[in-house]
């Protein structure tokens, strides 16, 4: 009686172990793929222009934008950049009728769009370069 069970179970055990390994590998695969393609096709996003490894703090290659996106050094922002030249609450990106408007929140070192320091709210268009502290972003809107 026990022998029969043992003989059947050895196959079941092997199947389970391999399914387990397979499912872990599959999850890891999804994990790796998820890093590269964060479904950027349809959305509006900021792309980092600086080379990532030249910056001494944590930063992403891409930031997708929500309806209201805050950027700054404090942790309550959507985009957090731990650059000492970025203010705690540095700037705000607001969506209105498919376009984004950039507003500087009285930051100490200012925000530059295409090299000019902005004073008022600015409407962004595709290809604008936004410089904040040491970081430079490209604004991409393909609609």
């Amino acid at each position, binding site marked *: *009686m*026990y*022998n029969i*069970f*043992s*003989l059947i*179970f*050895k*196959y*079941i*055990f*092997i199947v*389970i*172990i*391999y*399914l*387990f*390994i397979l*499912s*872990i*590998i*599959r*999850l*890891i695969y*999804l994990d790796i793929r998820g890093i590269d393609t964060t479904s950027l096709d349809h959305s509006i996003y900021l792309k980092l222009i600086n080379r990532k490894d030249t910056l001494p*703090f*944590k930063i992403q290659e891409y930031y997708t934008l929500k309806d209201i996106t805050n950027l700054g*050094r404090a942790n309550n922002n959507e985009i957090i950049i*731990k650059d*000492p*030249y970025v*203010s*705690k609450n540095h700037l705000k990106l607001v969506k209105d009728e498919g376009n984004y408007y950039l507003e500087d929140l009285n930051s*100490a*070192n200012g925000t530059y769009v295409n090299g000019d320091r902005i004073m008022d709210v600015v409407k962004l268009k595709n290809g604008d370069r936004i410089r904040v502290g040491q970081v430079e972003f490209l604004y991409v809107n393909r609609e």
Partner: protein
Amino acid sequence: MFKKRINYKVPRNLLVLFELLALFLIFIYDKDNFDKYTFGSGIALIFMIYISSFILLRISTGDNYIFLIATMLISIGIIMIYRIDPALGMKQVIWIGMGIFLFFISYFIVKKIKGWKDWTLLYGGVSIALFVITLLFGTRTKGSLNWINIGRFRFQPTEIIKILLIFLIASYYTNYEKYKEKRFGSYYLIGIVYLFIGFLFVQKDLGTVLIFYSIFLALQFIYEEDRKLILYNVLFFLVSGVAGYFMFSHVRVRFETWINPWKYIDNKGYQITQSLFAIATGGFFGTGIGLGHPDFIPEVHTDFIFSAICEEMGIFTGIGVIMLFLILVYRGFKIAINQDDKFFKIVALGISILFGIQSFIILGGVLKMIPLTGITIPFVSYGGSSMLSSFIALGILQVASEDLDLGEEKYEQGT
């Protein structure tokens, strides 16, 4: 997102299914004298593993796989240990329970306390103190002086020193600039590590010497700027290997039985030949649990558990165990690459190398690929200290897999 969440459950449920089936098998085996205690602790262990991986998914933002992989290895190991000796199996259940508890403890301690990277002297001091204690109060088993008895409790200090060594090397290379300015600064670390290895030679614990050397060489290869030191190190490794061969008779025995065990099948080569017979008997699918004879191999529950697994659960399970270790080490390297904090980056690397090299040495040993050195397979073999230290290392690896915002205080002064 939704799809991803369902997928996380798959390996966890497979694990529980595996454990429940194993418990069911024990139940059929022992159905005449049904032992409530065994059954209860089995259920408790399954429940504990399930709940732990569930909790971990909630509290940790880091890696979710390493704990699952480790618990799968444990499940394979505990089935085999219980089958070889039920009393040892019950003890192992208690060790696993304590190990999981220590996993969470070390996870929280390492995460909460800041400043691990500055305590280089502390790690060195504690390790040396442990070595001295072992030499003074240790007991000798099977030729190596590496156990300390405290009351009824026995433990192997080298298991803890392994982790301290990784911390020591990591903290040294994190503060590398500081040490480099001092005179002979780059020789400090080598001095200390060789002191450790000297202690281990005195204890005749040569398996651990190999692990220490590998961890040190690997980390030095990655982080040392003075490249000629690595060359010296490799040369010294070769010299001490040859010296060990002539100095210690049991190293010669290991080497001879590796070259040709069949000549000494009745005495020195008995263990390794029995291991090879066991693996060969099992074939691809094994004889079935409880139907083989793994008890012919001496030390089958610790060093030779892999042969027992191959005999009764098949070569496929053996390959599965090796693959699980591969994924574990791969995840460890991935964690090290993603980690921004230099100290934890080196620690994660060190721990992955520790798991990798330790399993490589013993799996290679029992398969007669390399000369046999008696060390435990992490998570699989029977052994309290080994289980606990492996879980502590896993807890530290779990911390290293998270985004640690340690550099934040530096920027607080800015506007």
